[in-house]
């Protein structure tokens, strides 16, 4: 058995939560007891108890069946002000420390996740490097390559943050290069990776761009849109990867319908021809807008093809906006839907054993 690192702190750009889910699944399948810790998060969601919470934390707790309390997994939630914390940094640190010790007790490994902005709380004298030191964590920077027009920029960014960490007496241990499009692959492997290694940082993984590593299920959509299920109540596990608006004549729409994979088709309930045509292309779900109840033939066809039909009161535009929101968050079912892909990615493209050493 190798010597284990207790805490790995993933910092950096988009795509961390899915990575953390995959790593924790991997670790626990290796027999390790795992924990998840997000010391500081941004408030995005209000619980019925009127307390704020980051929905990703709930999702990871549910998806991984973690027993720790939400308050321990995510002790500090920033709602509006950061500067207000200035006067009670000590109690803030104490809260984090205590929560962490509860999370860490009885665990073999804890994955911590940073706030989206790495500079957070520098203003009040409690910068991220200090936090990673406090937790005695191994810090891994997640870089997102896809969003850049000039891929070499990632190295500049890395150097900047490396300086920031060194300035505060901490260090970045390594990097995971995430979301690498095919057309950047050769550059990343031949130029970027050696450059990073020359900086004295380890490269724990190069992850290729995937079409989608998470996808909401129809039941996520039902919940988010507060939709009425008109047909196939028992078939809500389909995943939704694409959104298509049916506004054209059915024959013209076929071109788009046929190209889409696991699509949600959004259209008016009165567009019988179009819906019937759409059902032929095996979409994941058909969402009828404007509260318009469809023709009986639509429901008959849907029953035959096994496609769920949802009815929502919103107009098409609002519906699509809400769908995009659902797509951008991760839910327990959306992680499970693509679990095989996620685990395969971890297995093939991340040096997960080295992360633990």
């Amino acid at each position, binding site marked *: 058995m190798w010597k284990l690192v207790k805490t790995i702190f993933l910092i950096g750009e988009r795509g961390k939560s899915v990575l953390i889910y995959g790593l924790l699944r991997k670790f626990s399948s290796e027999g390790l007891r795992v924990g998840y810790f997000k010391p500081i998060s941004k408030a995005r969601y209000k619980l019925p108890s009127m307390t704020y919470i980051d929905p990703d934390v709930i999702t990871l707790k549910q998806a991984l069946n973690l027993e720790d309390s939400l308050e321990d997994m995510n002790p500090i939630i920033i709602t509006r002000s950061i500067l207000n914390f200035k006067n009670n940094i000590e109690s803030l640190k104490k809260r984090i420390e205590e929560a962490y010790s509860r999370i860490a007790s009885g665990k073999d490994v804890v994955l911590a996740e940073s706030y989206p902005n790495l500079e957070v709380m520098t203003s009040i004298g409690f910068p991220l490097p200090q936090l990673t030191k406090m937790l005695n964590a191994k810090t891994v920077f997640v870089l997102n390559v896809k969003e850049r*027009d000039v891929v070499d920029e990632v190295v500049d960014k890395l150097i900047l943050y490396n300086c920031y960490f060194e300035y505060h007496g901490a260090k970045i241990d390594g990097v995971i290069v995430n979301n690498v*499009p*095919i*057309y950047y*692959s*050769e*550059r990343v492997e031949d130029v970027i990776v050696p450059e990073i290694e020359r900086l004295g940082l380890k490269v724990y993984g190069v992850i290729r*761009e995937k*079409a989608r590593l998470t996808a909401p299920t129809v039941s996520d959509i039902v919940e988010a849109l507060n939709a009425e299920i008109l047909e196939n109540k028992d078939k809500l596990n389909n995943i939704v990867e694409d959104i298509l608006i049916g506004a054209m*004549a*059915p*024959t*013209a729409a*076929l*071109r788009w319908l*046929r*190209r*889409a*994979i696991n699509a949600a088709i959004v259209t008016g309930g009165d567009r019988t*021809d179009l819906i019937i*045509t759409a059902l*032929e292309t095996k979409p994941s779900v058909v969402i009828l807008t404007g509260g318009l109840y469809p023709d*009986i033939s639509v*429901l*008959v066809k849907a*029953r*035959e093809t096994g496609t769920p039909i949802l009815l929502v009161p919103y107009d098409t535009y609002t519906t699509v906006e809400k769908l995009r929101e659902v797509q951008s968050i991760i839910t327990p079912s959306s992680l499970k839907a693509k679990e095989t892909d996620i685990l395969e990615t971890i297995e093939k493209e991340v040096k997960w054993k080295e992360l633990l050493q």
Partner: protein
Amino acid sequence: MKELFKPKSIAVIGASREPGKVGYVVLKNIIESGYKGEVYPVNPRADKILGLNAYKSILEVSSDIDLAVIVVPAQAVLDVMEECGKKGVKYAVIISAGFKEIGGEGVEREKKLIEIAKKYGVRVVGPNCLGIMDLHTPLNATFTSTPGVKGGVAFVSQSGALLSAILDWAPRVGVGFSKIVSLGNKADLNEADFLAYLGEDLETKVILLYLESIDQGRRFVEVGSTVTRKKPIILLKGGVTEAGAKAALSHTGAMAGGVTALRAALKKAGIIQVSTVSELFDMAIAFNSQPIPMGSRIGIVTNAGGGGVIVSDLLISRGLKLAELSKHTIEYLRSTLPPVASVYNPVDVIGDARADRYKIAIEALLRDPNVNALLVILTPQVVTEPEETAKVIVELSRKYPSKPILAVFIGGERVEKAIRILVENNIPVYDMPERAVAAILGLTEYSEIREYLEKALERVEIFDVDKEGALAIIEEVKKQNRRVLLEHEAKEVVKYYGIPVAPTKLAVSEERAVEIARRVGYPVVVKIASPDIIHKSDIGGVFLGLKSDEEVIEAFRTIILNAKRYMPTAMIQGVTVQKMVPKGREVIIGASKDPIFGHILMFGLGGVYTELFKDVSFRLAPLSLREAREMITETKAYALLRGFRGEPPADINAIVNVLLRVSKLVTDIPQIVEMDINPLFVYEEGVGAIAVDVRIITE
């Protein structure tokens, strides 16, 4: 289907004692139709119904039952079917409603119904139908109140209500029926099954269909093309929407599911399509009693100049020809008709014509070999003799049985008796010229169809294809959870089917792009490779005529940037590098899978012309050699390809070859739902053609 239309015994399950109930009407109709076999009413709460002994269950009947007519409530149908199965019933006509048409539980019930029927081998008509009729048996197992008249017209309808209305109306115009079928939900037996049977049925001369949906498109076309060689099939298709007809036909993808697919299918099946109920029956009247004309040249005899002009206009506007009378006929008419009469076609015997003058003109035209079919128009004027003229028509029709005669008697009371004479003597008669023209159009169309089907449909065999190779690529794409093939993959697929393509490779980096460009040789074309981007040039994803490494590198960078900017969510796989081929004349060849009829093929002139002029032709796959040729010759583009104003002719045989190979490809690999070769560069005669861009989408 002998046991359905001519059963030895019938059980009416759900027979009722109460007049007005469906179970009562059906039983009464069977008895009153003069049915000679055994009839067993089944009703657990009755001893006798309409004078017949009633049974608690069909299982209590000791003798064999051929046909069960089921009218019990939907909830009870499944149990009843189970009993029918045990009893060994051959056919069940299920009149009861409450199945698929109500959705929800009804869908499940229909599914179970079919399971039971399959288990016991019972064939089912309906459910949710009006019943069936055979006027020759005679048997009326429907709940309509009109019995109908015996004749040679078979009518198969998806609408029960339309059936009752037609039955009520038919005797007035002289339509007699052989068999009548109300299809209902078509849970088991559908239009194709009945077509196959009626095609062989000696009592049926013409088959009329009213359909709202077609269930097994491929089979429908196959059966149709066999049957139409023997007798005409006329179809009125409901639910052909205007929106569908208007949809832009310039894209391959727009072809499926709509009117185009239906037309292509009917063409292949040789089925005549009409768009009104009136046309359906106007044609039926003519087919029922008249021979099929040998051509489309029509002779007209009229006593009103106006009538002649109107009919001529109608005929010509609908693609028929006015017969040019022979010199002999003209001279004969000139010597026998009054000097003011018109002796050219349309022959105007003028207002004061009595029956004898009609006789001279009609007989002269019937004898003229230049006339294939005859229209006789009569308007009641002062000395006109409608009844006598009708008798003349009847007499001459018998004398010349090989040429069809159709009468148009325009008027009210004064022609009423004459019309009755014509109807009773099997001469089709119409009250308005346009109706007669529709009918004669049907007759000539059918004569063309019969001739066409003989020649058109022989298969072509293409052997030099590699199906396994093509399938391997498609399987690999499927494994990657993609429906869209990238350009280099699509080209590889068509190459396996012997279609020449411009060499194309995928490059994932600038360096690879340059390597490939050097290998295939400059100049090259570089295009974005992404399954999510349909219109590559619209997003700045195509660069043509690149001549150096530097240009290729620049193109690679720009294309990736453009694609990311215009479609940030698109999955970009790199770029394809393709050897630039010499410019030829651009055409498009496409295929799209229709959910009902299968693949339809498209041919059209390439570039902007397709969209601008909609100059495209369609056929249902698989193509025969003749169909492939027709697809090209029937477009306006043909004139350009043949060589316009001194331009050398293009290699039309090469286009035919590609069409046949695309047809073979989509027939062999039906997972391809859409594909197009756009453009196909066609070179001068003998030089060939080459596919410059190919798109394929799979299921």
